[in-house]
């Protein structure tokens, strides 16, 4: 039995993935669990907002971002302290109001340390989110799929990539139908000279 499979992108270009659309997050999570149990691993889920439990169903690791930010913050503390202490105690000792230059003077260096730590941590957090999330990117093969490109905010999408070891176009289509997916589409890459 064969189900209808729409095609988008350029037919002569290689197949990128088979995409499907779900109406609600429950169906999407159900589909993910099913795909996992069938042994697929190269799939991605696209949702208009963070869906609770989806990452767990996909067995995604905890985001490494928190460690990056911790590292960034600790580095920032070191940078800030040396930026303040090296000039004011070694390069050009600046004695104001007879205040000491030893460790007793440390509290007055704290505000800049706090400010710089917060700033650098925030920069690391945002840059890390962008890079770990595979951004910035000008284009993506998924945009060849018109329904996704225009309506990603309306549905819950799943794409099973063609480079999956178990990938078989008709079996995947069959499986996606079984889990209640709609708009099942073969996403080919777009021809390079296309405008």
């Amino acid at each position: 039995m064969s189900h209808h499979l729409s095609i988008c992108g350029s037919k002569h270009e290689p197949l990128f993935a088979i995409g499907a659309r779900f109406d609600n997050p429950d169906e999407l999570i159900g589909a993910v669990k099913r795909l996992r149990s069938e042994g697929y691993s190269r799939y991605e889920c696209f949702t208009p907002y963070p869906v609770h439990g989806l990452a767990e169903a996909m067995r995604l690791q905890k985001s490494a971002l928190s460690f990056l930010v911790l590292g960034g913050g600790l580095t920032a503390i070191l940078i800030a302290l040396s930026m303040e202490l090296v000039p004011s105690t070694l390069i050009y000792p600046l004695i104001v109001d007879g205040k000491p230059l030893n460790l007793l003077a440390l509290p007055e260096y704290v505000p800049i340390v706090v400010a710089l730590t917060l700033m650098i941590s925030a920069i690391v957090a945002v840059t890390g989110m962008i890079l770990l999330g595979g951004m910035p990117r000008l284009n993506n093969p998924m945009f060849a799929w018109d329904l996704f490109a225009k309506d990603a905010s309306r549905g819950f999408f799943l794409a099973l990539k063609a480079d999956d070891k178990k990938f078989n176009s008709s079996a995947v289509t069959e499986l996606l139908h079984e889990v209640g997916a709609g708009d099942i589409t073969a996403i080919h890459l777009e021809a390079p000279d296309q405008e």
Partner: protein
Amino acid sequence: MSATITNAEAVKDPQSAPDLSMIARPPQVLNNRGPLWVTDAVCSIVEGKTPIWWYAAISIAGTFAAIGGACILYMICTGVGVWGSNSPAFWAWDITNFIFWVSMAHAGSFISAVLFLTRQKWSLSISRAAEAMTVFAIVCAGVYPAIHIGRVWFVWFLFPVPNSYGMWPNFSSPLLWDVFAVTSYLTVSSLFWFAGMVPDLAVLRDRATTKVRKFCYGIVSLGWLGNARQWRHYEMMYVLLAGLTSVLVVTVTTIVASDCATSVVPGWHATIFPFYFMVGAVYSGSATVLTLLIPLRSLYPQLKDLITPSQLEKVAKLLLMMGSCVAYVYVFELFNAWYSGNPFERGAFWERFNGTAGWYAITCLSINLTVPQLFWFKRIRTCLPLVFVLAILCNIGMWFERFMIVTTSLLHDFLPSSWGNFHPTIVDILTATGTVGIFFTLFLLFIRFVPIMSMNELKAALPGSQPHGDSGHPTGEGHSR
């Protein structure tokens, strides 16, 4: 897992279950709107035709901003003598306005970061606009530190680099702390604002109908797809940034307050200053949030289901709480001046009200001690036009407070021979109105070109938007769209 008792379950069995309607949370979005409606409502502001009032408003705001810019140029070309700042008030409108703006910013951070971390879901639909207010207020504040030094070409003295004598800035000086605090505040809050907007900008990119829009929103949305991995990192980033921003809510005003508090000037030298500045900050910022959102809600009727009266009432309560803290500090300051037994401290506070510049302090206290207290009455708190007017009054009161702290303290210090008065010049006044113009210009651009609400957060918080094994959300069905 889901042990929460929903309102609908309580209604099902009135005999055994207590009536929970009193303590049930008001809905995040009124009229049972669905996720698609939320997307359309928020995007329609950006995608629709530009309303006439917008052109009118931005022309007025832009004109003020341009006049302010011309005044700054005039000041740079001529010298700080064009301002009224003179002995003994070397800090006058410049620092007053700097503190006024940088403080106002704090309520936005408070609403978007502290209320996010404490899971106050009601603030979801106003947090983006509040953050925008934060960023634009810091931009307005940032106008002053560079120009108030007089010779702006020496602004690099503020940077941590040695000058031609090989001498570095004094890192122990609160004025240098200020530079770092404000830079860090601007950076962190802009990043928080922008990063939170990326998924929503991607929605605008997907919906764009013209090539220019598609290109512009495509660039700023960084290629966001909304896949599970991106959301995982995004959510982590959001919590981290909220945490970092919450710290800033406390540290930035503390450092700004140190500018005054670490000196010995009577009226400045007080340990309560960090707290004083912070509560005043959230107080004036809440007032600004109300001032901006109440008209916005009337101008875009589709927002009435998203910015609900109940949310605005909560902001009014925040204003009441912070206003009461401010009132406490006023009383405490006066008590402390008397209790110190220091004739100069006492004299400074006596002059603050009875001196030539006394009307500033009297205006400040008569507004800030009375207006927020009106919000004890639910009838006043929920009458939006009245709240709008009172909120503007609160901000006027706060401007007078900043002036009272910064300038009138300087007029009457330890040396009777240098006691004096301060008179603003027209350049002072037009520069100040110029920053108001900059603020409103930026806010109008914000309304027109980016989603003013976090659509993804709103949609994620709608009933029925999250998966559930045990169907604990009876209201999940029946969205109007």
